[in-house]
């Protein structure tokens, strides 16, 4: 049992079998997390640096907890408050950290492709924790685990990804993963937030009416409006966005079936999703966070075991 890749740069590089192995291993780690002592000694000899050039709550805490549960030594690095503000380059920063004998680098960066660049230039194992608008592989994996737990399988299931598709790395990773695992994908949202050729490039369905997307799907993955990445106006106001594309309780009540709601967080309550939806029984949001630790443990465990393989 081995992953076909040395790094986790994106779901794009994984095979369906890799994804299966990660999800199965994560399921076993979930059991470990229920034990009185939630820690195993697997990565005792491994040092991991968490390199966060962009803000994060869930992903950073989740990675750190996963590393500690596996008994790895961890170092946390955030760009603010470091020598990055003095002008040190990414490669210099990482090489300096690596000379302190680090085995795995978990990195988040606002530039798409930053982890790919590092993987080419340094000998450590790279785990992408989100790069710009490209990929966020562990988020897609934990989403998949949450869907699999609720629906039993991903194969043949219908998943709608709703919201800011254009600026979302979660959307891209989810599309790759769901298609590799045999699920059907629809992206939905305002036309200005959906890339023009996404249908032709990825073979996903495109829907501009959120109600229709909800009626079609088994699971709706609602994405955050990423104001920090939008440099010009793509919709008139948050209030208008909410009126046209926000998920409301009434929309779900009007359906003749139960649709599960996911959101990668952080939630803009009252913008892309209303509070009574986010906190409802159909919401898997907190399960996603719980699964995040198990999925990240699985990824780190499998990659650490793969270090010497070539």
């Amino acid at each position: 049992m081995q992953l076909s890749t040395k790094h986790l740069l994106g779901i794009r590089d994984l095979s369906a079998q890799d994804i299966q192995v990660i999800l199965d291993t994560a399921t076993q780690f979930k059991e470990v997390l229920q034990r009185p002592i939630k820690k195993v000694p697997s990565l005792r000899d491994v040092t991991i640096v968490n390199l966060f050039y962009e803000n994060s709550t869930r992903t950073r805490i989740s990675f750190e907890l996963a590393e500690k549960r596996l008994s790895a030594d961890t170092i946390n690095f955030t760009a603010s408050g470091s020598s990055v503000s003095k002008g040190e380059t990414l490669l210099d920063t990482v090489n300096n950290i690596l000379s302190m004998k680090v085995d795995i680098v978990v990195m988040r960066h606002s530039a798409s492709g930053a982890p790919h660049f590092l993987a080419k230039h340094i000998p450590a194992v790279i785990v992408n924790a989100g790069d710009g608008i490209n990929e966020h592989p562990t988020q897609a994996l934990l989403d998949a685990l949450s869907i699999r737990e609720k629906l039993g399988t991903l194969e043949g299931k219908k998943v709608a990804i709703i919201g800011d598709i254009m600026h979302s790395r979660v959307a891209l990773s989810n599309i790759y993963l769901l298609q590799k695992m045999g699920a059907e994908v629809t992206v939905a949202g305002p036309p200005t937030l959906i890339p023009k050729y996404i249908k032709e490039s990825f073979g996903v369905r495109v829907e501009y009416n959120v109600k229709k997307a909800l009626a079609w799907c088994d699971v709706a993955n609602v994405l955050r409006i990423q104001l920090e990445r939008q440099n010009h106006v793509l919709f008139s106001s948050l209030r208008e966005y909410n009126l046209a594309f926000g998920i409301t309780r009434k929309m779900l009540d009007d359906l003749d079936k139960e649709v599960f709601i996911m959101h990668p967080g952080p939630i803009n309550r009252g913008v892309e999703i209303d509070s009574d939806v986010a906190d409802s029984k159909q919401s898997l949001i907190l399960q996603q966070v719980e699964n995040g630790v198990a999925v990240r443990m699985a990824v780190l465990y499998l990659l650490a075991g793969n270090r010497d393989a070539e």
Partner: protein
Amino acid sequence: MVTILDSYHVDLTLRRLTHQLIENHYPFQDTCFIGLQPRGIQVSDLIMKHIAELYPELPLKYGKLDITFYRDDIRSSLHVPTVTDLPFSIEGKKIVLIDDVLYTGRTIRAAMDALIDFGRPAKVELLILIDRKYNRQLPIQPDYFGKAIDSIITQKVKVLWEDQPSVVLY
């Protein structure tokens, strides 16, 4: 390929081991039986079946332990994790660990580490179907064993769990 135990002798040996457990642990109030995933489970399933046949009225505490995450060889080989199911507290209990073949002792070392994470047992014993003596890398010995054999490192010992279980050396 040499057959070390044929199906008749596997059955006989398992029944003898069962009786040794009964001798030391009856009526099993403070005893927990734990099979080691994946291959110890067949041995432990049969032993539990034999005990249950003899004492159908006694409740038995029987669990399964996966030690994948406790192994010391993850850099050389990754193993597929399986289910851990310990539906009882091991605190202050007498534990009988059950596996098929005892070889280097590293699996048992990992199993003891895994076990300690669930609580502090009063005592831990080890039951093994085949003991490959002279190959130990750690000071670990079985309390109960089916058959002890001499073998060299290049040889392999395998328990075949088919309709007619047997133990072979090749």
